[in-house]
């Protein structure tokens, strides 16, 4: 078995298994913790609406915070949008999802994906520099932050190299790319990358609770 | 040209190059010829460029052909398919195209020399030819 076979075979299978195992473990483990009933008289009965509202509106900052968070928000948007475009717009990735789920959709031009990857990598580097230099971020950051950054950065970087056939033989680059994806999948449930699922639960929880009280969301 | 009305036109060995634009290799080739020719004049060192090994487009060939042009000598050699030997406008620069029996190009060379090796009569062949001619004239004389 060569490296690519390992990457496409056992590595991906087991990474996906760990991914699903970890995700369900973590979500179930959180959601099944105790919940106390709220007997207070609700100001608004439609708390679910607040959940939806917050899930949507918290995607951009309130006017009052815009100035202070503009840079961080933009940066976040750039690399998140970049990742989404790369992940869901690149033909080989669509094939990957199609192989897993049977669902496919039209792809974006490869050149556009390469450009996006470049921008995304640049944004991710700025993100890292900022995390290393900004006092608040430096204080807050732990292994999870840096490792999660690494496992996000690596697939984009290795993917770009693989598409460009740069630095090594393509099968090696592709194998490394797939292994980096496997690493991402394995780490995903256990680190902060879970925010991609938790964001809905967390925002939804606050949205529902606050809507009930009529509080600001 | 991709029309069905042309289906009966016999097309033999369409050129392998697909793209129409210039690859930018022609300048490099011309400079290389210049260097080879300079070396040849100065030291007598011959040289050659194998065009087959370079990624040239149809347009590249066109540029090379018009730039180098046709000189005074144009020879055909008929062994296992034909071979075309043409001196270019620049004496000492030869263009040799080798075809196989099926008329595919098997080698395409630019040689810098006074006369390409393949045009010269091989010494052994000359000696053998001499022997044959002697036999023949001997036979004639004897008759």
């Amino acid at each position: 078995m060569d490296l690519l076979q390992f990457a496409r075979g056992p590595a991906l299978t087991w990474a996906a298994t760990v991914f699903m195992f970890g995700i369900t473990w973590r979500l179930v483990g959180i959601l099944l913790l105790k919940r106390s009933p709220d007997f207070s008289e609700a100001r608004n009965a439609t708390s679910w609406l607040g959940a939806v509202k917050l899930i949507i509106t918290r995607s951009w900052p309130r006017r009052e915070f815009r100035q202070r968070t503009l840079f961080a928000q933009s940066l976040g948007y750039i690399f998140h949008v970049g990742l989404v475009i790369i992940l869901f717009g690149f033909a080989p990735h669509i094939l990957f999802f199609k192989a897993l789920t049977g669902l496919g959709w039209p792809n974006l031009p490869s050149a556009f994906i390469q450009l996006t990857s470049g921008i995304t990598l640049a944004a991710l580097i700025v993100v890292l520099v900022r995390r290393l230099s900004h006092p608040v971020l430096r204080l807050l950051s732990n292994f999870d932050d840096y490792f999660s950054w690494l496992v996000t950065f690596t697939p984009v970087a290795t993917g770009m190299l693989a598409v460009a056939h740069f630095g090594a033989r393509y099968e090696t680059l592709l194998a490394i790319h797939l292994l980096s994806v496997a690493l991402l999948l394995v780490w995903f449930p256990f680190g902060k990358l879970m925010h991609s699922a938790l964001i809905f639960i967390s925002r939804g929880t606050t949205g529902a609770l606050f809507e009930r009280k009529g509080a600001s969301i | 040209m991709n029309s069905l009305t042309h289906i009966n036109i016999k097309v033999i060995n369409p050129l392998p190059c697909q793209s129409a634009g210039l690859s930018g290799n022609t300048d490099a080739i011309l400079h290389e010829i210049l260097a080879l020719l300079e070396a040849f004049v100065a030291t007598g060192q011959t040289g050659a460029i194998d065009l087959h090994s370079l990624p040239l487009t149809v347009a590249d060939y066109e540029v090379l052909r018009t730039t180098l042009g046709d000189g005074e000598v144009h020879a055909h050699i008929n062994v296992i398919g034909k071979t075309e030997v043409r001196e270019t406008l620049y004496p000492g620069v030869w263009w040799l195209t080798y075809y196989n029996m099926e008329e595919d190009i098997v080698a395409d060379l630019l040689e810098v020399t006074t006369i390409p090796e393949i045009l010269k009569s091989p010494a052994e062949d000359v000696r053998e030819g001499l022997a044959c001619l002697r036999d023949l004239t001997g036979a004639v004389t004897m008759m």
Partner: protein
Amino acid sequence: MNESDTLGASLVRSGVSRRSFLKFCTAMASLMALPPGAAYAMADALSRAQRQSVIWLSFQECTGCVESLTRSFDPTLEQMIFEMISLDYQETLQAASGEAAELARVEAMKSSYGKYLLIVDGSIPTKDGGVYSTVAGVSNYDRLIEMAKGAAAIVAVGTCSSYGGIPHANPNPTGAVSVSDIIKDKPVMNVPGCPPIPSVIAGTLAYFVTYGKLPELDHIGRPKVFYADTIHDRCYRRPFYDQGKFAKTFDDEGARNGWCLYELGCKGPTTYNACATIKWNGGVSYPIESGHGCLGCSEPNFWDNGSFYRPLSTPLASNTHIIAAGTLGGIAAGVVAAGLSRKHQTHIGEEK
């Protein structure tokens, strides 16, 4: 038999002129991407030498490699076996059978001991004493060992002899292995492909005949001159890959317009071979040009890379049951974890 007869003399007697021989050498040099001047050296060296003795052994094979060689245009099989080499043993082509054939092999081995080139196609079964393939009652393994001793070098033609090929594919019922798995004390060159491009077989032979040694090899024993680039790098459909234009089926607009076959499982990006440049059968086409993705046949273990129609970017197999089991396991782990936490909390509540 005139032992000292040179190839040059023999050619002259056969009516092959020195010019045509020089031309043949020029074509070979060009094919091998040798410096243009090498043709003269090659012609000179060859005309002074005897034709190279070649002994070809067929083991667990399908004869596709020999068939491929018969389709060679530059040089042709006739040119090769009558002007370049002396093919002293080749079961598919030789006149003699049985004892007479065996005798031809033994004679060739004796007269060219230490100098002959040994070509092998087919893998070698090693399980159960090699009973799965015998010729003249001798196992392939024993025959290879015997013939390798006197060989100047060995060329493994085809993926089976290079890397085990299809007999080696999972679960490898006969314990098939490659030549280089067995022979460690001789130079072995692999010329993989299922089958290999005939010009590649011919070109590598010509190189050996000219220089008396094998050309430069890559990390898995293939001559670099033919196996340096991927099919994908040299594919005429590459621009469509770069544009993200892909054929989705074998018969859609993209397929008819020659768009990239990546989505149909083409292994061009991971396959090192000269199909896209030399092409097949006198240059008329190659698999991708004829609408089917590259199978990756010049790579080790290409049979075991999942379906040929699975794109490179997808997992080799859909092990959904394993993943589903993981998911259920995750749910169970989550329930247990939450249960433990709750118990912990209740416990504290009671303590109070």
